[in-house]
């Protein structure tokens, strides 16, 4: 342990400033996402889940930090890498897992699957799988908020791979032009599937584009959930109080492949180890231990409880029946 500790990065300001309760809450919520994703991996291997499954492991601090920066009524619009956001927003873990299983108890009744998590009441507004096409939608939610003067802020996440595609540009153009209360957050996890940034982006710093959209911007390496919370809060406040959009680039890393079918062979072990060393979730755990003297045993107990919760969620999801055959006819049109 000691030998390792010396190689680990120092604890960040965000972690130092957080209270023990805040740290404990954030740690627990990040670990819930990670254990959920690990269970999903196992279920996928056992054939319980099919289709595409994109894991959020490594990026959890973003969803948690974002949730802490939001207010009731604010909206998250995410990509297909959406489980973490749903859990962070408080969506029921059983319903999330049941959605992955394609069961009637799923978040959207089993018709959406991994890539389409929606839970309106929890501020979870998707769940989109055509790269970039949710960016104009998010601008539209913000347009409605401005039209209705309801003070709601939309936070729209996209991948580094979504920066070049047309809808992203058009959505941001309109948001900037019309001063819409939206925050665009690029989760730059350094890869678009197997392609590193250098082969997809003409200019490394994505936020340089903000100027062209007339937006403020921010860019930082994600170290912990509190830093994400505080830096996002500035943009969320700007949206709410001044009705101005912001473009934020978060430098982050996914520890797994793009999806279950990707072993991630295009990355070196050294690169992966480097990022694991400063895994924001582990940093939060260290802060609890090093700054607040929380014992290894106490953290073990938290983990055990989460493992138990997620195992129960998985079993309950598995007990949920498939949708009835007639269900496929539902919700094609709104019937008056």
């Amino acid at each position, binding site marked *: 342990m000691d030998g390792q500790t010396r190689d680990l990065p120092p604890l960040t300001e965000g972690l130092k400033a957080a209270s023990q309760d805040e740290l404990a809450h954030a740690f627990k919520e990040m670990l819930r996402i990670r254990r959920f994703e690990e269970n999903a991996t196992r279920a996928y291997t056992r054939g319980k889940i099919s289709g595409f499954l994109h894991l959020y492991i490594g990026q959890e601090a973003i969803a948690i930090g974002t949730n802490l920066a939001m207010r009731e009524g604010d909206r998250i619009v995410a990509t297909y890498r959406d489980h973490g956001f749903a859990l962070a927003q408080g969506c029921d873990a059983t319903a999330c897992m049941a959605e992955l299983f394609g069961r009637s108890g*799923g*978040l*959207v*009744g089993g*018709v*959406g699957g991994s890539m*389409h998590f*929606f*839970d*309106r009441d929890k501020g979870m*507004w*998707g*769940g*989109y799988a*055509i790269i970039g*096409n*949710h*960016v*104009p*939608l*998010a*601008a*539209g*939610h*913000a*347009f*409605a*908020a401005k*039209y*209705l003067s309801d003070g709601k802020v939309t936070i729209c996440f996209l991948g580094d791979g979504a920066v070049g595609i*047309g*809808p992203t540009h*058009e*959505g941001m*153009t*309109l948001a900037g*032009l019309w001063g819409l209360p939206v925050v665009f957050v690029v989760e730059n996890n350094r890869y678009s599937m197997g392609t590193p940034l250098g082969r997809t982006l003409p200019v490394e710093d994505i936020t340089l584009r903000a100027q062209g959209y007339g937006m403020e911007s921010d860019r930082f390496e994600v170290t912990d959930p509190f830093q994400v919370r505080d830096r996002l809060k500035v943009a969320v406040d700007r949206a709410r109080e001044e009705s101005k959009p912001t473009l934020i680039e978060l430098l982050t890393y996914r520890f797994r492949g793009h999806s279950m079918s990707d072993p991630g062979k295009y990355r070196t072990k050294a690169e992966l180890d480097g990022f694991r060393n400063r895994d924001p979730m582990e940093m939060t755990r260290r802060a609890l231990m090093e700054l607040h003297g929380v014992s290894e045993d106490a953290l073990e107990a938290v983990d055990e409880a989460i493992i138990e919760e997620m195992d129960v969620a998985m079993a309950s999801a598995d007990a949920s029946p498939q949708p009835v055959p007639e269900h496929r006819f*539902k*919700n*094609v*049109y*709104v019937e*008056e």
Partner: protein
Amino acid sequence: MAVLQIREAIRDAMREEMLRDDRVFLMGEEVGHYEGAYKCSQGLLKEFGEKRVIDTPITETGFAGVGIGAAMCGLRPIIEFMTFNFSAVAFDQIINNAAKIHHMTGGQFHAPMVFRGPNAAAHMLGSTHSQAFDTFYAHIPGLKVVSVATPKDAKGLLKAAIRDPNPVIFFESEVQYGVKGEVPEDEYLIELGVADTKREGADVTLLCWGQSVAIALAAAELAQEKGLDVEVIDLRSLRPLDEQTIFDSVRKTNRAVVVEHGWPYGGVGSHLIARIQEECFDALDAPVLKVCYEDLPMSYAENLEHLTIPQPSQVLEALEEVSYRG
């Protein structure tokens, strides 16, 4: 009754709905200050202001998506495409977001909105500006598709489309905006999915919609001179489709022809023919024929364009053929 142009009927429909419901707004290129590329929004900016009549940059994917996102929040957008040709760059928004959101979210969200604008060939606009999108959109479950040919239908159907809780594709035509017709003074709605028999007849059923209605009516006149009594049915709505009216007519006349502003391969016309033979096979006295665009990109040259678009004389030939005349 007032006599209005189709463009005025469309404007009146939007205006009335905007007065009735402040969630309704109009968004698109040149809809505000310029009052519409085809002048369908005259006076609306002046009356409703920039909050509700919104000029956009040239960003079809962007403003189609903004409309969908706003509709998901409870607003009632009318998205104008300068022409449906440009909806091609917003196709993804329409088919992957608008058409899917209700189903994909287990009913949690829906997109009550209208995408409207001129569709299909006008006059000498060349191949990229002469496209008929009927088949593309009618193909997609989750969308409703309307196509209008008269001022009265345009107004009543557009008002119903704006109130519909589903995304509605609303086809107009550049060459028909100036068409005049009587429009009731009192408020009225026309239900989506109900065909209109524009001319009753006993001998052949002639199916048409949008721009092909005028062709069909002209062909019916020519046929009358030859002693053929043609029933012209304007479908008005391609989805939902009023199959009952079609089948009832075919069972009466035992013959049918489709005239379509669109291409022959796998089109709406092909679908109609398939449905008629499935449901009315025993009633048919002749194969059902289709008169439509030639299977070619549209040419600019006037003569070539004329040859590519169906003409009343060709429809007459088809009517005679299914009647074993001529």
